[in-house]
């Protein structure tokens, strides 16, 4: 099990490193540094104006609880394990214990930084900065440790006590952190450590490795990796990223947009793919809303134009996998249809979606009465949409994938 874990971990880290390299390319790092600088500056300005009001403590505790909920059990389990390692279920507990320990690292670092970020707020709340931060970090780590125990035990369902739920833990963490910010974070630390020890003690009584819920574990790990890859997919192509499908019957009102004629065969397929696959419509709507809000808040016209271009480009890039989504369905290659129809149908759909997106983005500035900015968004977004659909996509699809 130890060898299995180390080889899995090495392979996992190698793959993640490869993707992270692609995500954090030069331009993105530059943008991040500027963004981080702006955020820190804004934060320092904000802190100088803050006074300890009644809502500040629960708000900070809520923020910390939210960061506490980040970070899931990285089980590194593969679907085939449920069949091949089934006879090894009991020893596999050792594998999962290692996985749990490994899963502590990243959230631990994040929580450490969160505590450091809260340090100036402790001063505002008249709490000793160093002792406060130190005890706060320990409290957060103890909570996270307990949280990951719960996540692990969730896959040993039969022995998980009824109160062993993440929601309850997060609620307790919120209450204890609020209390800690009222007097001293040492209270939160003591509570967290007590909770952690109580949990470990019960775990010691209940841990029965033979009752592992393999299918649940595999499904959870699949979901976690899927989320991770979808995030990477925002920046680069992730091969073999398969999303799910939802029926979304209420979207069937859009289906008559494509007439059912042989010339529209591909359009028929792409429209349904866009509406029902989980990876396209949701992302488009989310980015459209975020984009509209961001554009409503931004003032300089050149920045507005740049952001509109960026959002349309981002969404357009996300749509591209749809054009290649049907490669593995053999009928895609057998239908007596000219290849040009596929590219044409896809660019048409993409142009429609992106123009609609530009319209939604323009609504953001329009709500605040920024007529000029709205016009700029419409023009820049429209140019990007038409440019992508008329020029970039046909070229990209002509290249062999």
């Amino acid at each position, binding site marked *: 099990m130890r060898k299995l874990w180390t080889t899995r971990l090495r392979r996992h880290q190698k793959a993640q490193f490869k993707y992270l390299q692609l995500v954090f390319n030069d331009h993105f790092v530059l943008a991040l540094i500027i963004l981080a600088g702006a955020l820190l500056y804004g934060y320092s300005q904000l802190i100088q104006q803050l006074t300890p009001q009644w809502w500040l403590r629960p708000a900070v505790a809520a923020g910390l609880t939210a960061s506490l909920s980040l970070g899931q059990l990285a089980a590194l389990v593969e679907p085939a394990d449920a069949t091949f390692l089934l006879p090894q279920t009991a020893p596999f507990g050792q594998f999962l214990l290692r996985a749990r320990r490994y899963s502590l690292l990243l959230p631990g670092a994040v929580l450490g930084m969160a505590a450091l970020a809260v340090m100036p707020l402790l001063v505002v709340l008249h709490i000793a900065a160093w002792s406060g931060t130190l005890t706060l970090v320990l409290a957060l780590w103890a909570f996270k440790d307990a949280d990951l125990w719960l996540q692990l035990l969730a896959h040993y369902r039969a022995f998980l006590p009824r109160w062993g739920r993440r929601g309850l833990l997060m609620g307790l963490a919120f209450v204890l952190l609020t209390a800690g910010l009222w007097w001293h974070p040492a209270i939160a630390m003591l509570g967290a450590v007590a909770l952690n020890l109580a949990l470990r003690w019960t775990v010691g009584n209940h841990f029965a490795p033979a009752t592992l819920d393999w299918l649940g574990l595999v499904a959870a790990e699949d979901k976690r990796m899927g989320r991770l890859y979808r995030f990477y997919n925002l920046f680069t192509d992730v091969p073999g990223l398969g999303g799910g499908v939802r029926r979304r019957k209420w979207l069937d009102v859009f289906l008559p947009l494509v007439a059912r004629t042989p010339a529209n*065969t591909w359009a028929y397929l792409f429209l349904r793919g866009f509406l029902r696959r989980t990876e396209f419509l949701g992302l488009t709507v989310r980015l459209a809303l975020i984009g509209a809000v961001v554009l409503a808040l931004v003032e300089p016209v050149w920045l507005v134009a740049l952001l509109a271009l960026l959002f349309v480009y981002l969404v357009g890039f996300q749509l591209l996998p749809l054009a290649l989504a049907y490669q593995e369905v053999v009928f895609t290659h057998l239908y*007596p249809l000219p290849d040009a129809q596929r590219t044409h149908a896809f660019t048409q759909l993409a142009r429609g979606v992106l123009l609609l997106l530009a319209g939604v983005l323009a609504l953001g500035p329009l709500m605040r009465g920024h007529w000029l900015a709205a016009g700029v968004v419409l023009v820049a977004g429209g140019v990007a949409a038409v440019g992508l659909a008329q020029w970039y996509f046909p070229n990209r699809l002509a290249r062999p994938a």
Partner: protein
Amino acid sequence: MTLRLTDVTGGYGSLPVLKNLSFTVPDGAIVGLIGLNGAGKSTTIKHIIGLLAPQSGTIAIDDKTLATDPDGYRQAIAYVPETPVLYQELTLKEHLELTMMAYGLDQAATWPKATAMLDRFRLANKLDWFPANFSKGMKQKVMIVAAFMTEAPLTIIDEPFTGLDPLAVHDLLDLVTARRAAGGAVLMSTHILATAEQYADTFVLLKDGQVRATGDVASLRAQFGLPEASLDDLYLVMTKEATHA
């Protein structure tokens, strides 16, 4: 309509799996493609439907090839794959609709035929289901309905009987013989030799990517010099040859 393979050599990458393969599938006939795992049955079918391109030799339906008339060639073929593959975001009804659109079929004229087949396969009440909710056998039936609905001159079926219940096997064989009666050609790869012997008119026996023998059972018996043998016996003789070679 006749499918004609002439001296086809091909495979994955540069390594040839098929070596100088030649046989024909004529109108109004059921041809059984028989061979061990790895003999090249699925590879042959992939070449015919155009997923793989031959390194040398020609594959033609009448005088149409994939190079000269790709749409006309594809129009002539209906295909049921070994492993059912469906579009995960299309309902059963939409799969059939898409197939009708792709083959340019008249929807009003085709739906009654499709509905009759769906009734027969007990799928008529599942028109709004997604493939994710289908069992493997049900998916296979969807592919069968889609393929036979097109009434393409050549129907290619890869390992049709695995995963189907006995009732569905029976129904499929009815459809296959009906296609033959209507003048269609059927190429069927299978391991179920008893069924193949009962239904197919001629056989193509593949061994190591080459045609070992072709013809009906009588001519196969003559070629192997075993006058009383069943297809099963002939198959066993052929596999022994394979291990000696």
